[in-house]
């Protein structure tokens, strides 16, 4: 009897202790399209620093899985605590479901916290907010700078230098084509890659003009933008892009061909460096980024400068209304964007930091460090690459595809973007 009593007491104590430990452990739910392997490292670093908090991460492909999952969860009030966001349209779509982070961020990082974020990111954080709304609904984790990557080993083999003029770019494309390589791979079936190249071109004709156009301060049919659109068409007609680019995708097709050394150039961004941290086997070009370097789009017209750096937030995170009720959610979000979690992502060369004062550490070659430093030098002066209204971005995507296909003239195409902008601004 005594034995039975002892056993029952022991079991009861164990159950109560386990229950109490379980009750003490807080959980944070996170959804994003951010690469799982890197997020796992960030979470591990966070959980090591905060053993009482467990993070449950759900990875989605961005489209259609992630954006449909968000929409359904928002409609049913079942969003997780923290969600991955892009600035502008995606953040604005879920603004009603997000907590403004101003007060929490001020408490966490001090009154001047926003000044620690690179200017282009700061601008993008409030992009699309209603007039007078100075709240921040997204905390950026990583930044990016757009550029033209080139395979320096192939360039060396063909005796080509990184182009500094449009003629040199054309000559490089011809030499690459003659050498059996794809000159500049453009996944023109993807709107985002077309937007990126157009932004490089437009900002070359007039820095900041796309921002002015989307704010309604300059018409999309302005001569500089028409010129940029003509230059865009020229990239197809002059053999800079590969034939059939309009049916091609940047990922996975273009990226794989580029990594395998079958492509000379590709318009991507600072995130390309992460390829060198992917699991082996890696090609000789990707290994430590040995085969790659980058340049900015050379002047496409006499008198133009080279394209300025264009970029901004690669990915950011929002604290949902559900997450607002869970103090552990902000703790994780803060570490992920400006703490131990971010450091892990940087060590994986996932992209550049959004907050100043961070740099990648660990097993990184001098060549990668040098490129990373160049990007970081350019980031503070980068022009904005994001759109406040998805309708404007969509109209620009269609305009770029129409002009590239030769089914629309640049002026007429830009007029449709202007119409979409006016409609979007009127709706605001």
């Amino acid at each position, binding site marked *: 009897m005594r034995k039975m009593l002892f056993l029952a007491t022991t079991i009861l104590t164990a159950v109560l202790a386990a229950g109490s430990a379980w009750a003490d452990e807080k959980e944070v739910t996170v959804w994003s399209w951010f690469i799982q392997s890197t997020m796992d490292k960030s979470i591990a670093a966070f959980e090591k620093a905060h053993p009482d908090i467990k993070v449950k991460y759900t990875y989605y492909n961005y*489209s*259609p899985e992630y*954006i*449909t999952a968000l*929409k359904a969860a928002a409609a049913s009030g079942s969003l997780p605590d923290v969600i991955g966001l892009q600035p502008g*349209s995606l953040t*604005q*779509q879920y*603004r*009603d479901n997000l907590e403004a982070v101003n007060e929490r961020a001020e408490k966490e990082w001090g009154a001047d916290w926003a000044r620690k974020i690179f200017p282009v990111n700061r601008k993008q954080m409030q992009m699309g907010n*209603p007039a007078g709304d100075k709240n921040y609904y997204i905390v950026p984790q990583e930044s990016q700078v757009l550029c033209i990557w080139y395979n320096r080993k192939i360039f060396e083999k063909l005796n080509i230098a990184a182009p500094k003029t449009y003629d040199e770019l054309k000559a490089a494309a011809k030499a690459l084509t003659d050498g059996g390589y*794809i000159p500049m791979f453009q996944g*023109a*079936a*993807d*709107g985002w890659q077309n937007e990126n190249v157009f932004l490089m071109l437009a900002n070359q004709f007039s820095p900041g003009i796309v921002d002015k156009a989307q704010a309604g301060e300059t018409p999309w049919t302005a001569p500089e933008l028409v010129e940029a659109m003509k230059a865009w068409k020229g990239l197809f007609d002059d053999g800079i892009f*590969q*034939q*059939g*680019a*309009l*049916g*091609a*995708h940047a990922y*996975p*097709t273009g990226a794989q*061909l580029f990594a395998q050394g*079958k492509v000379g150039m590709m318009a991507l961004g600072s995130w390309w460096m992460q390829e060198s941290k992917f699991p082996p086997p890696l090609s000789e070009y990707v290994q430590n980024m040995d085969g790659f370097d980058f340049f900015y789009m050379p002047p496409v017209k006499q008198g133009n400068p080279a394209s300025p750096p264009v970029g901004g937030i690669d990915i950011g995170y929002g604290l949902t209304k559900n997450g607002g009720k869970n103090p552990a959610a902000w703790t994780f979000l803060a570490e992920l964007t400006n703490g131990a979690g971010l450091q892990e992502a940087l060590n994986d060369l996932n992209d550049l930091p959004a907050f100043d004062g961070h740099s990648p550490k660990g097993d990184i070659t001098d060549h990668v460090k040098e490129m990373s430093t160049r990007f970081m030098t350019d980031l503070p002066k980068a022009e904005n690459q994001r759109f406040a209204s*998805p*309708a404007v971005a*969509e109209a620009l*995507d*269609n*305009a770029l*595809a*129409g002009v*590239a*296909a030769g*089914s*629309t003239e640049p002026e007429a195409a830009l007029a449709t973007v202007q119409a979409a902008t006016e409609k979007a601004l009127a*709706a*605001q």
Partner: protein
Amino acid sequence: MRAEAVRAGPAAAIERRPASRTSTLYLFALPATLLFVVFIAYPILWVAGQSFYVRSGSGTSSFAGLANYVTVLGDPTFWIVVRNMLLWGVITIPVQMLIGGVLAYFIERHTHALRGFFRTMFFLPVVTSVSVISLVWVQIYAPYYGIAQEYLKHVGFVMMTSPIGDPKMAIYALVIVNIWQWTGFSMLMYIAGIANLPSEVLDAARVDGARGWRLAMHVIVPMLAPATKSLLLLGVIGTLQTFPIVHLMTGGGPNRASEVFGTFIFKQSFVLGDTGSGAALSVIVLVVALVLSLLQIVTLGARLTPAGKERA
């Protein structure tokens, strides 16, 4: 008494059922009814309701009557979609039926030992992931470095552009992929139909001198009418539901040239965040599907089971 019951028919028999038995029967129908209401009827009604609301920039929704429908019908993209859907249905349904039917006929009547192998091989694309199919076909269509080009270069042909990158060709290029993927399904339906053909009818036709082409066209094809009607009905519904292939291969581009209802609704609702017009489009597709299905049932009849298995 027995004669009266027969004359009165099943309706009278139901009338005479005890109330407790009737309630039991309703109880059996309850799970299916609940599932229908929760997962089909309610979402349809919810979407229909959403189609009458617009969302303002500040995030509030307001009743807008038929404004979303007017906007959608006035959008030139809508008419591109209608044209693409017509092309899609008119090309894919008969071509899939024809190729599927021919394959089924030859596999069932002219292969023996390898019958299972051929059935499996031709059905394989149906069960293959659309993502894989899309990736492979994008590579097939790629000019210069693509898979098709590797073969075409042996006959001196160089693909200058990708058909999915050409606004005039994109929809046809996608239709080909769809036919490639779904012909195996038509084949399977016809195989089921052929397997169920009454052998006495075929024997009688042979005794009467019907052979080969004549047997196929005048005996087998008419007897496969139920399978054909099923494929027609499923083909129309499948056409209106088209999404993954287009989304993954062209995203509806270039410049909306290959947009279909699925991608258009997706963009309006999830990319642009305009759930009102997305809902209006969904309701239009639902009505079109309903009307076309009813038309088919009225004109072609509802006998969709294979002839041999039809209940008297």
